[in-house]
């Protein structure tokens, strides 16, 4: 066995389970897999900076000259159709629904973990089971209701729907984050005479801040990505980024570079948020199971 084995290690320090000489092999394998998964992404970014003709060659012209034409097209250089209203709609729907989800899920999580209601686990299952219902089955009643209420093509409708879509997962996440808060602290606060709002403001929110961040990130990503509702329920005023994206597949000549540029541009907020907060992302994805 390798020398690393015999050295005394501090606890919880990761150590490879393989012999030293195969360490390079592991690295090589990981890099290969990593590049393999990254290749389509890299190709998308590269193509977005190519001209339409260079984008449509076979074999691919990797070293072709770079240009911003694809992005100019995305911003409406030749059609005059600006993507900004759609992007702002996406941002509005994502941010507002995330705030709404937090406003609903944090108190709910409190009532499910810190001071649990009776049959709290049944409530948890109810929340999760709604996430399993087929979204598409609700599309028709939502459409009809929205039409009768004059809510079609209205960004608030998307805010409500995205809240519905993310609330169950958020409740699960927040519950597991709140359950982490040591009871002793809450009890001490209670003895000091702090009321519930104070406890929330001074203790729960600050201590669960990383969890809140993780929950927000996940909610934001899933809202930003949503297309089915946006496609069916919006039109002129409330159309979102993903819907705008589909209009780039045109019959007017080549469109590959344009589509790639649009795909990159629409994904940018999610990419930035996700890369910047990788650890929060992991926390969120594991529904708070990993601290």
């Amino acid at each position, binding site marked *: 066995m390798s020398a690393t084995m015999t050295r005394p290690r501090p606890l919880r320090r*990761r150590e490879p*389970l393989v012999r030293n000489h195969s*360490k390079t092999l*592991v*690295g090589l394998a*990981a890099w290969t*897999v*990593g590049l393999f*998964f*990254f290749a*389509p992404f890299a190709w*998308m970014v590269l193509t977005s900076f190519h001209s339409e003709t260079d984008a*449509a*060659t*076979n*074999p*691919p012209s990797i070293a072709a000259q770079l240009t911003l034409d694809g992005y100019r097209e995305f911003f409406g250089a030749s059609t005059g159709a600006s993507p900004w209203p759609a992007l702002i709609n996406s941002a509005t729907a994502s941010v507002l629904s995330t705030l709404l989800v937090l406003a609903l899920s944090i108190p*709910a999580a409190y*009532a499910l973990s*810190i*001071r*649990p*209601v*009776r049959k*709290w686990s*049944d*409530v948890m*299952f109810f*929340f*999760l*089971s*709604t996430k*399993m*219902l*087929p*979204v*598409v089955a609700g*599309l028709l*009643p939502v459409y*009809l209701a929205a039409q009768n209420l004059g809510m079609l093509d209205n960004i608030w409708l998307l805010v409500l729907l995205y809240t*519905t879509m993310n*609330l*169950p997962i958020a409740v699960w996440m927040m519950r597991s984050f709140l359950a982490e808060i*040591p009871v002793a602290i809450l009890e001490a606060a209670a003895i000091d005479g702090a009321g519930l709002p104070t406890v929330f403001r001074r203790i729960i929110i600050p201590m669960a801040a990383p969890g809140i961040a993780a929950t927000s990130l996940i909610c934001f990503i899933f809202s*930003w*990505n949503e*297309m*089915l509702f946006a496609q069916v329920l919006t039109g002129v005023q409330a159309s979102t*980024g993903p819907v705008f*994206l*589909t209009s780039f597949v045109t019959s007017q000549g080549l469109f*590959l570079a344009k*589509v*790639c540029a649009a795909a990159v541009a*629409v994904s940018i907020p*999610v*990419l930035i948020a996700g890369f910047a907060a990788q650890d929060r992302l*992991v926390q969120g*994805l594991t529904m708070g*199971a990993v601290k």
Partner: protein
Amino acid sequence: MHKAKRPTGSHAAQVPRQRPGRAKAWATRAPLMPALVYMVIVTQLPFVATLVISFMNWDALRPDERGWAGFTNYKLVFTDPDMRASVITTVWLTAGVVLLSLLLGLGVALLLDHKFRGRGVVRTMLIAPFLVVPVAAALLWKHALYNPEYGLLNGTLTWIWSLFGSDSPPQPDWISDRPLTAVAVSLIWQWTPFMMLILLAGLQSRPMEIIEAARVDGANAFQIFRHLTLPHLRRYLELAALLGSIYIVQNFDAVFTITSGGLGTANLPYTIYQTFYQAHDYGRASAAGVVVVLGTIVVATFALRLVSTLLREEKTS
């Protein structure tokens, strides 16, 4: 279906409950109510509406013929071969994508669990596919990768063949030849990072002392994996599979974008969408929706059993 469990081990049990009584119970419930009431309204009311419409003869294109239809719509749903086909497609697509991305994700996570040069970079590269907007990813695969004329896949084939002096490389038409696989691959590409992140987190939460001890006792890498790592990872695997299934079974974007439901790739969400949005047959679409919801409840009951074990184990880990 689930007996209410006392939150054993949770802090809640330690918070003294002194004043029993109705007011107290309501005070405890109050913070839960907004979320609960909201979810009940927005998920159950539409279902009631769907249920009602499913018994109606309501074709938006024939407004004069609206009326009650009894079980006609259900008869149509159960005798519709497209519906049956889409159930099978959904099962295949979900199972295939979840299992393969879980396996791939596990493999990648095991690799990333080791130290090597540039581990952070590789991890970041691997996350990228998950952070691409799904519609964008589907467009990318359809047009930039699968396209038989100028897609990257065939382009690479041309390039490789030309290295060997051949100017007649195979140029398969990926989407037409293997439509469901084409859709699945694009989804696996997006969901492997998701699985990887969860499993990597699981790997890194292993109690190292025990593994060290096992190693000192002479256990080899495979034995450690089989008897220590895998049991520890079980609930992470279950969690990843559950969450993955929840999202992939509902997939619409990839099917819609890559094949528009053609070539036998229409899954349930797409088929219902088609009935509602292309055929405008609201009655039949609602009946299909009701059937799918009932089916989901059956499946979900089993899935939730799984979660209940997750919830129990959360306290013991």
